């Protein structure tokens, strides 16, 4: 078997996999989320001392305690991510803007948490559509943030109208460059992008440690952290404190629309999807696979870089070494959850944003460590990736083998 044949076969099996995901009905998606939440609650319950104490008293009290844990957990998750309904109603009826702002702050904070997920999820989803696995979003986020913080701290006295876009662009460019390297290596040498993006992640981490301990670091601080960025580079916030909702969310939505438009409304996007779907056909039709791979990885990296830029300009206003907490890997989960479709990604990112924000409250009030949401995300990802598990648990019928309608539809577009 020659190398090119193998390569084709691998991409082939990948597109079948994506096809499987696509057939995955909405029911399965919803059930996967619900099951993930249930199992997460169960983990919270079995690790709770109260439950064991209650079981010591009587069986019924134990069951009751389990329900209490479930209720407290998800109540905290809800109030932490959306707000306390009674407070919101009271605030609206009081008519005070300040009270309304405060009561809705958790809801907007969830949107703030969802914003980097949208960027990173789009990055991974775009790769999936072209048959590429961009595991390196984490590293791209870091270099994006580094470039952004450099532009945002070193340019002084610029008008915000120029400074903000410039800082965002710097992040996108750096992320794009970081994505381009594995893309180029894949296209030219066939080196697997999964390994290369992982390696690039760690190179990015070391680079950020180096830069933040050196030229980008704040000399007045003992810890490796950058100086605060110029005020002119802040992504403007829409509401007064403590509400951190900023324009980055709309930039993210714009990007989602652009990715949608690129993939589904342009010839170029058609080409990219064809390469992902059937590289043989693409090559036969005269499309350049090398170019598609490199372009996709650049765009994917740029989107991830924007996630880093967004966090720096919109939320943190500086950059520390531990600023990205696993967005890269989580975004793989949410790209799959969102069916690698921009709209799906936005919805999945909102879910993850609400979960993440709610989990902070959960940690404070219900005493459940925030890391439980990683467990939740892993479970949801497993259920989404292996819909057969969900079908077995809930005794759903196997979907009827569909006719290859998408292929026919897309051909019309050409």
């Amino acid at each position: 078997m020659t190398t090119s044949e193998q390569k084709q076969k691998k991409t082939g099996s990948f597109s079948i996999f994506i096809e499987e995901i696509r057939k995955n009905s909405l029911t399965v998606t919803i059930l996967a989320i619900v099951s993930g939440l249930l199992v997460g609650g169960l983990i919270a319950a079995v690790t709770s001392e109260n439950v064991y104490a209650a079981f010591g008293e009587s069986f019924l009290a134990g069951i009751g305690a389990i329900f209490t844990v479930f209720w407290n957990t998800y109540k905290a998750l809800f109030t932490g991510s959306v707000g306390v309904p009674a407070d919101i109603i009271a605030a609206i009826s009081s008519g005070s803007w300040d009270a309304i702002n405060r009561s809705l702050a958790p809801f907007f904070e969830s949107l703030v948490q969802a914003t980097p997920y949208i960027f990173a999820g789009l990055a991974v989803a775009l790769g999936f559509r072209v048959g590429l696995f961009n595991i390196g979003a984490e590293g791209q986020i870091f270099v994006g943030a580094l470039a952004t913080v450099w532009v945002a701290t070193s340019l002084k006295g610029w008008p915000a109208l120029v400074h903000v876009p410039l800082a965002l662009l710097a992040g996108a460019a750096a992320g794009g460059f970081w994505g381009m390297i594995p893309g180029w290596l894949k296209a030219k040498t066939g080196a697997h992008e999964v390994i290369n993006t992982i390696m690039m992640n760690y190179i990015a981490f070391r680079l950020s440690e180096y830069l933040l301990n050196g030229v980008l670091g704040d000399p007045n601080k003992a810890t490796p952290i950058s100086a605060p960025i110029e005020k002119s580079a802040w992504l403007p916030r829409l509401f007064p404190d403590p509400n951190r909702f900023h324009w980055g969310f709309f930039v993210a939505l714009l990007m989602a629309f652009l990715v949608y438009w690129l993939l589904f409304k342009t010839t170029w996007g058609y080409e990219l999807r064809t390469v992902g779907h059937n590289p043989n056909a693409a090559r036969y039709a005269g499309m350049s696979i090398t170019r598609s791979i490199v372009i996709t990885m650049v765009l994917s990296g740029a989107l991830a870089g924007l996630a880093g830029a967004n966090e720096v300009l919109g939320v943190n206003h500086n950059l520390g070494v531990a600023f990205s907490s696993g967005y890269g890997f989580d975004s793989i989960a949410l790209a799959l959850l969102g069916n690698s479709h921009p709209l799906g990604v936005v919805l999945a990112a909102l879910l993850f944003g609400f979960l993440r924000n709610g989990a902070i409250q959960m940690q404070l009030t219900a005493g459940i460590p925030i890391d439980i949401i990683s467990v939740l995300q892993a479970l949801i990802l497993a259920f989404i990736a292996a819909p057969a598990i969900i079908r077995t648990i809930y005794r759903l019928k196997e979907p009827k083998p569909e006719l290859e309608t998408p292929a026919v539809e897309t051909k019309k577009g050409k």
Partner: protein
Amino acid sequence: MAQSSVISSKQTDYISPARRTTMGVVFLVMALTIWFGFVISTTSDALTTFVLYPGGSDVVVADLIFASRPILNILAFLCAGLGAYQLAKGFGKWTNTLLGVVAGLFIAAFLVWGSSGTSLNLAGLLKVAVVRAVPLTLGAFSGIFCERSGVFNIAIEGMMLTAAFCAALFGSLVNIWFGLFTAVLSGILLAYVLAVLSIKYKVNQIISGTVINIFATGITSFLSAKFLQRHSELNDSGRFTTWNIPGLSEIPFFGPILFSHNMFIYAMFIFTAVLTVLFFYTRWGLRTRAVGEHPKAADTLGINVNRTRYISVLIGGAMAGFAGAYFVLGSVGRFDEVMTAGRGFVGLAAMIFGNWNPIGSLGAGMLFGFADSLASKLAILKVPIPNKFLEMAPYLVTMIVLAGVVGRGQPPAAGGQPYEKE
């Protein structure tokens, strides 16, 4: 199958003229770097001191003291000579070996230059390198078991982390041997999840690996925050003590470096031998490799492809579990959140650099361990190279190897593809 591996090894023996030239140029560039980078910035009367026994060793060896500049010149001449021969005639199938030799000479020159005017504890440096190599090499072995049978395992990191947690918890609750046992068991359990998702449900193997990595990070941090941080007695497992191998540990210089460790280090060496025999000299190994290279052919010959994969992945999980136990039982004696810090991925890199081969992976693990060990010493040497750049070296060389610049590695052909019986 045996035949195809013979053919493929012949292919690697062939060195194209372009590569021959490239390698020659690389050798010469290294020689020039020694001259213009190192020799020029060394004063003619500078002395280099290498301390040849690590701290805490009874086997005292006299320090090695020599003039830096002549030695650097000799090393540069050797590199240049090898480069010239490579350009003129070429070393043929020995080219890659020679690249290793020249790289070794270059590293030696770097150390001589870095420690000119001061002293460097060479033995200590190497001893730490051996220790740091352990999780990387064992992680690579885990990868070898999985990938040789055709299953990508990017979940080594997650398995190691979970195993480290179990080792700390159960090591504290019962004893270190039970901790080790549960660590290995947890590796096997996660490997079972990987196997079921990848083989039974035919989930893309990168996705199943990601599931395990996210899950492992989440559950260990969750449980650690919930229990270990509140009850410190649950996070005090103790560790395996150093055991000097009688006789061998008294060899000057090499004794303390290689034969004065705890059992994880010896296990690494033993496993290297065991895996080599297992994969290349037994029927089981041949069958496993066959499944990883050409599952259909293996199936035709009556090998149960999926069963072979299940077994290999489970052993790989056990290996990752053992590697994870090292972090706690062989090193610090307690669990910290996300303590594996990407070592599982470096292990994966070591496997690639070692060409999916146990001995190669040991070499790669040692090399990466050395880079790690040297990076922590750079500050002492006052070398104008940031240690973070040296820490990048393992990732960079892996990318270079993967790109085929210095000789393409040969991954198992059927890696990553679920097998569907027709």
